[in-house]
């Protein structure tokens, strides 16, 4: 499989493939973090996660349009504002959805699955009615296009690096929030033992709403980031949802670290195999390995060990 490549080319292959794997890893992390805290905390499988991401993407699209028309001088920096807006819009909608729908369906995982799937169809058709069925193009500021030329063969895309930085910042921020703050302590208490947490005076309904909103908000930021590398259309969210669930389930549904480890494993395996096999075969083999490991470890890679 290494035939026909010189040793310097091989070095470049590994460098570039490593980078490709890392950027896939950051995409996976961005997608999965929002889902994993919702799933882990509340046992809710949010099938509309992809649509929340696309809401973030559309928010970015609108922000970019606004900056182009009214503040062209500040266009270079619009992306940061777009990300904050995407977070706020998606978190607000998430809180509303939790209040209207999800909170009535706790402890009925199959019903939330159906309800959020219905929600995802609703959201898709809403986007279609508002923005039209065609994909929209999100314009990026000049500095985000192009690549660093490290050597002739090794080039690092700037937007890939940018996505990586966003993913890392969010992962670190989320870690601090969950393990170094009062809110996080309450969340963990509710996850481990809901009745007991309520007994000591934690407002579990409020925690649930905040967590759902947080998860949706992170999805929104992910959506904003993905306008750089993917498409923004009414059904684009569907392209991500399968991989997202794969990462979350494989990592162990309640574990942040597990999600990150699983995202890393799957992305590296995938991009390495994509290089030596065809894209479809790489996907098949990745899925087979994941299925095999889940048969041995049904709880995922890093299950939270608590007494039930």
């Amino acid at each position, binding site marked *: 499989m290494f035939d026909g490549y010189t040793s310097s080319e091989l070095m470049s292959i590994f460098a*570039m493939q490593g980078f*490709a794997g890392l950027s896939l890893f950051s995409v996976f992390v961005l997608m999965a973090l929002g889902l994993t805290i919702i799933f882990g905390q509340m046992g809710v499988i949010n099938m509309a996660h992809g649509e929340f991401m696309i809401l973030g993407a559309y928010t970015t699209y609108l922000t970019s349009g606004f900056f182009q028309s009214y503040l062209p001088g500040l266009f270079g920096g619009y992306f940061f504002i777009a990300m904050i807006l995407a977070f706020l819009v998606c978190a607000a909608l998430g809180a509303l959805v939790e209040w209207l729908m999800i909170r009535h369906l706790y402890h009925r995982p199959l019903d939330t699955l159906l309800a959020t799937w219905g929600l995802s169809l609703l959201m898709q058709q809403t986007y279609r009615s508002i923005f039209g*069925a065609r994909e929209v193009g999100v314009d990026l500021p000049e500095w985000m296009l*192009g690549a660093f030329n490290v050597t002739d063969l090794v*080039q690092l895309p700037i937007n890939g690096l940018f996505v990586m930085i966003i993913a890392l910042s969010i992962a670190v921020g989320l870690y601090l929030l969950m393990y170094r703050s009062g809110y996080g302590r309450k969340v963990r208490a509710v996850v481990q033992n809901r009745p007991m947490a309520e007994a000591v005076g934690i407002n579990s309904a409020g925690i649930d709403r905040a967590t759902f909103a947080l998860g949706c908000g992170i999805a929104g930021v992910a959506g904003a980031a*993905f306008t750089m590398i*993917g498409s923004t259309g009414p059904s684009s969210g569907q*392209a991500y949802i399968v991989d997202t669930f794969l990462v979350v389930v494989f990592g162990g549904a309640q574990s942040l670290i597990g999600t990150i480890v699983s995202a890393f494993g799957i992305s590296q395996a995938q*991009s390495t195999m994509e290089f030596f096999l065809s894209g*479809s075969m790489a996907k098949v083999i990745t899925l087979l390995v994941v299925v095999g490991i889940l048969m041995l470890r049904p709880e995922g890679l890093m299950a939270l060990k608590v007494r039930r």
Partner: protein
Amino acid sequence: MTTYKQSMKGGATGRWGLGKFKLLAASMVLAASANAATPPTAEVNTTGLAVTDDIVTVGILHSITGTMAISEIGSVQAEKLAIKQINESGGVLGRQIDFVQEDGASDWPTFAEKSRKLLRQDNVAAIFGAWTSASRKAVLPVMEQYNGMLYYPTFYEGLEQSPNVVYTGQEATQQILASLNWAAEEKGAKSFYLLGSDYIWPRTSNKIARKHIEDMLGLKVSGEEYYPLGHTQFNSVINKIKLRKPDVIFASVVGGSNVAFYKQMKAAGIDFTKEDPLLLTISVTEDEIRGIGGENVDGIYASMKYFQSLDNPNNKEFVAEFKKAYGDDMVIGDVTQAAYLGPWLWKAAVEKAGSFDIDKIREEFAGIEFKKAPEGYVRIHENHHLWSKTRIGQAQPDGQYKVVHETEELMEPDPFPEGYQ
């Protein structure tokens, strides 16, 4: 239906009586003069289609919801525009066209069900519709069972020829062979990298392309690769392309993947305007560029039969009418134009046959021309596909293509190409 209308007319005459005699006489004169141009319904419709003395009903069957809506809405718009224009110019055999529109909802069983409804319940005289190969395959048995006639607009993989379908888009060889010849002759390409989404159309197209490159041109295929539909990470294949250094990337990636693919190519520092490698696609029309962004595809080449920028009087008129009907920001892709041909070809066939009957129309298809086609001129081949030219366009930053090459002759449609299977 016809008998119901006739009895209504009889009753009306009775009630008017002698007092309205003059009016009646005048209307009889009018009716007689109309009859001279409009053959009686009983003559032109012997199989119970929805044809009356002044209306003929056709069906439009595309996805206007679901994931395919993005692509199919342009076709719906084009078909409605054609129908409106035909009506304004006097209709078909003196009858105005009315249409029933159904939504295939991006779901193949729904397409089959709706086509059955259109044929059995609405008795439509023709169906303009289906877009993906999967939806066409779902509709096909229904069309054949109830002897309907489908006008199918999309360029597709070939290997099909039904007596109940007219294919107004290109089959694979019409799109591929001329463009590969062009790349080899004009651009001096020696090696090709074939890349597509993983389903029947790209795979069949690349099979034909590989045969042509290796056996007919004697050149090299340096890679062939498929990614699942909806795939959004192309870094690995971009790395592979950088290492193998093909002269041409021959791309048939579709849908949202397209957007990801071109954005990531651009981000990886590949400038298509340098043509190193040159990118030749058979799947990116002006419609897709709207989603990808013109700056991301600047310089790529596409092989189609129609570009919005084609410089001929027919097309100028068509583009103006289309924008008048649907807004100035509309773009028109290859398939939209092919969909526009459907109603016009149907009209021509009906008028040549002097009948709406499917069986009579079918006998007349071979040789039917449409001289006002925006792409210039088309003619129906006896295999129900169209003779049309292949054109190569280069994408401009504004999202339009500049035509750089055009075959001199019309390409013969060859849905079962010998030596390519």
